[in-house]
């Protein structure tokens, strides 16, 4: 490696070191300050404000009525809010379907691509490509695919069922709108978790498989007794990430259905934005934001694991 410095020991006096240490301290603060200031203003303060606002009837626009302290009344209101309950139900339903399906499909794709065959990197790029297509744009394309009258999905279902299925109105149908969004979300997101599974597969020591082969274990045995147990951490991690994604569901809903029909696709974040921006109820929206934060607090587990693993490497 080429280095721009000569490694020589020049004359260093104790006073020089002292001066240097003081300078170091100032300099390190100068290095740290820009990021700390930005984090304080744009993350820490808004987060504390969210907690504070959630206890008040804060409004978005200056109002004739002064802001007053409500205590936990916003939270009490949530308990009787039918739309919010519907939103929580929708997020949960979305999660119950999408988390296992997406995790399972991601694992399946990773196992397929982990074979030593020609062309795997091409397939990998293709399966991953929906992840990089922007959600706002691709949601519009799917809205077209789900077109109620003459849509491609309807035509496809009709063809494979010999005319028995459909036509459905998809996004205009209260029972099908959310499943339609689920399908698009799985299509868009699964490639990301496939990549994470592929990394997990590559970390499994080959010696385990060799030992199993010597013992005469077939491919299914190897999958069941080596691969899956070895991937337990990865699976856990993928399931938490997909759960968090389920609670963050917003863009698809905003672009495709705007919560409708009725409140069939209202989600927690969509409702929060709706309350905060369109109805100007910042206090109530903040209470929803706090609840949302608590819901996705499970994401602390993979983050902590990651941090602990990194700290261990440091020692």
């Amino acid at each position, binding site marked *: 490696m080429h280095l*721009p410095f000569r*490694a*020589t020991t*020049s004359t260093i006096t104790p006073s020089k070191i002292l001066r240097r240490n003081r300078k*170091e301290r100032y*300099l390190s603060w100068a290095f740290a300050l*820009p990021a700390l200031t*930005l*984090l304080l203003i*744009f*993350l820490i*303060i*808004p987060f504390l*404000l*969210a907690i504070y*606002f959630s206890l008040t009837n804060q409004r978005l626009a200056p109002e004739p009525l002064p802001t007053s302290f409500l205590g936990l009344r916003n939270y009490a209101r949530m308990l009787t809010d039918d739309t919010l309950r519907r939103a929580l139900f929708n997020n949960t339903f979305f999660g119950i379907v999408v988390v296992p399906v997406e995790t399972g499909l991601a694992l399946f*794709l990773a196992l397929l*691509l982990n074979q030593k*065959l020609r062309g795997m990197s091409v*397939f990998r790029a293709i*399966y*991953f*490509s929906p992840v*990089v*297509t*922007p*959600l706002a*744009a691709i949601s*519009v*394309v*799917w809205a*077209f695919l789900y077109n109620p009258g003459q849509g*491609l999905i309807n*035509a496809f279902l009709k063809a494979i069922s010999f005319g028995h299925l459909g036509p459905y109105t998809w996004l205009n149908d209260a029972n099908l709108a959310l499943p339609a969004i689920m399908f698009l979300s799985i299509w868009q997101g699964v490639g990301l978790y496939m990549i*994470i599974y592929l990394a997990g597969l590559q970390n499994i020591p080959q010696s*385990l498989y060799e*030992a199993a082969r010597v*013992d*005469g274990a077939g491919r299914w045995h190897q999958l069941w*007794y*080596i691969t899956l*147990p070895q991937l337990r951490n990865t699976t856990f991690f993928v399931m938490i*990430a997909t*759960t*968090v994604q389920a609670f*963050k569901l*917003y*863009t698809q809903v*905003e*672009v495709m259905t705007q919560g409708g029909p009725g409140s069939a696709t209202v989600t927690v*974040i969509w409702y*929060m*934005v709706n309350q905060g921006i369109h109805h100007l109820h*910042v206090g109530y929206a*903040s209470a929803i*934001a706090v609840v949302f934060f608590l819901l996705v607090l499970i*994401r602390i587990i*993979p983050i902590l694991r990651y941090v602990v693993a*990194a700290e261990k490497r*440091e020692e």
Partner: protein
Amino acid sequence: MELTTHKGRTSSRTPEKVASMPAQPSSRKYVGLTLNYLLMSLLAIFFLFPVVFMVISSLKANENQLLQDVTTVRAFIPYDDISLQNYNDAFQRFPFGLYLFNSLFIVTCIVVLGLLVNSLIAYALARMPFPGRKLILIIIVALVVIPFESVAVPLLLLVNQLPWFNGATTWINSYQVQIIPFIADAFSIFLFYQFFIDIPRDIEEAAFVDGASRLRIYWQLIVPLSRPVFITVAIWQFLVHIGDFLWPLMVTRGDTYRPLMVGMRFFFGQAPLHWGDIMAFASMITILILIVFLLFQRWFLRSAAFAGITG
């Protein structure tokens, strides 16, 4: 642990049986291989068809033909009235160029300024012993947990009150409101920190003894040595922020500062609904990002794991 139970069970097999296992008829192997590729190709079609459908549709200038084609396989065949008319219309009806500029400008600023600010603090945390170092590190890790969605509404109130250099008393409807809140990123800081602590100290010490300043060490030693983490973070931030939708929707009012994704939503919402134009608009956004992806594929895949960690 599962392995031991498995071993215990299979060790009863006879050696002859083990020996016969790998020898399979080769025709069966080829059938398996063909089925394998068939399955993978079907999956490839599944992941590609919406994008192919979008691009082909965007080329069909005749809206009636487009709508009739979607019910058949012809939706995937470019024929008849093929032109770039829809693209032309999209440019005419909406300021696509402006949206594109806004998006690229905003993302570039976030990525470049973010690399600088986040790597500097990470370097200080990793290498310069100063009071409060451990505490700051803990705070930063704790901040990774806060999702943006939970601070969006109060942040809107906050930026609404902030002054700017041009005398404005609000940040609503500006570039800075879409850039500055996203420059510092706790997770990026952590990624940098983690990479920096792995760099052997002797390399720096030699330079240090030689009288090089910290800033010079950072710029001429650390940055070149850490190229992988810089690229990973840059790609990751690009991917996250090019798709930003919620926040720009909240803080932009007219076309002037609106990025592509929000522009797309308004384009979609505007009557008359002309699918050809919409597909052209969506194609331009998607193809642009797909090209970036293909160019930096390796780095995208490496960054993917980080996107998953923060959910």
